[in-house]
């Protein structure tokens, strides 16, 4: 996953879990069944994890551009300047 993908994954996870929480609560309240609420929410958690945890391709839409190997050859690394700075003995 690239950076944008990670951000997207986190946002999706939070929004989906809260949404399924709300949907579960409303469903359970309307049907008068605590168990229904738990089942709906559990299904929501599973769906969310299937969408946000694996490294799907749509999380990789802004890949980082690493420098190509052939380019590296053309531009050699700068050498360390060996100019030893002569330290003048400041003390006289």
């Amino acid at each position: 996953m690239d950076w944008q993908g990670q951000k997207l994954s986190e946002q999706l996870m939070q929004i989906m879990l809260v949404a399924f929480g709300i949907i579960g609560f409303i469903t359970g309240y309307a049907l008068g069944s605590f168990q229904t609420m738990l089942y709906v929410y559990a299904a929501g958690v599973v769906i969310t994890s299937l969408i946000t945890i694996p490294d799907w391709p749509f999380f990789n839409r802004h890949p980082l551009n690493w420098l190509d190997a052939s380019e590296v050859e053309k531009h050699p690394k700068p050498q360390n300047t060996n100019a030893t700075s002569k330290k003048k003995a400041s003390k006289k």
Partner: protein
Amino acid sequence: MHSFVYRANALLTFALTVLGLMCILVSLSVNFNSPSPTSQVQILNVSGFRRNRDGDDEVVLKMNISANLQSLFTWNTKQVFVFLAAEYETPKNALNQVSLWDRIIPSEEHAKFWVETKNNYRFVDQGSNLRGKDFNLTLHWHVMPKVGMMFADKIAMAGFRLPDSYTRDSRKSS
């Protein structure tokens, strides 16, 4: 969000937090309903009334207990514990409460009931004060929720009185 395990951990933690918030909402959502339970008790007869060897009075009652506790059940109710207590005053204690009968009601279908029974627990006084005693029969209930706080309430039914003198109960030989 750097790895599979990191994301899985974050998701599970957040899921549990949201679940906790949902349970709080469930517990709060029930505060708005106002239950209206009803109950009635009749004493059929006092089948035993004597003074025990250690000086305490003991009563055996046969009674009809009927109640409709269906309005206490909500989606957040796990069970209702109900018990019948005899309440009276003596010179020694301002309030005596003796539990005579109890039951666990697991669901709304069982919450409307009529039962004819002898008291399951002994109605014994601390002392010898029960002759001619006026007492209340109070139906108490505890509503146990699936999530949240338990609350208790009661209906007091007054107007019961014990006989003025001991009666001999027909003892069955044990």
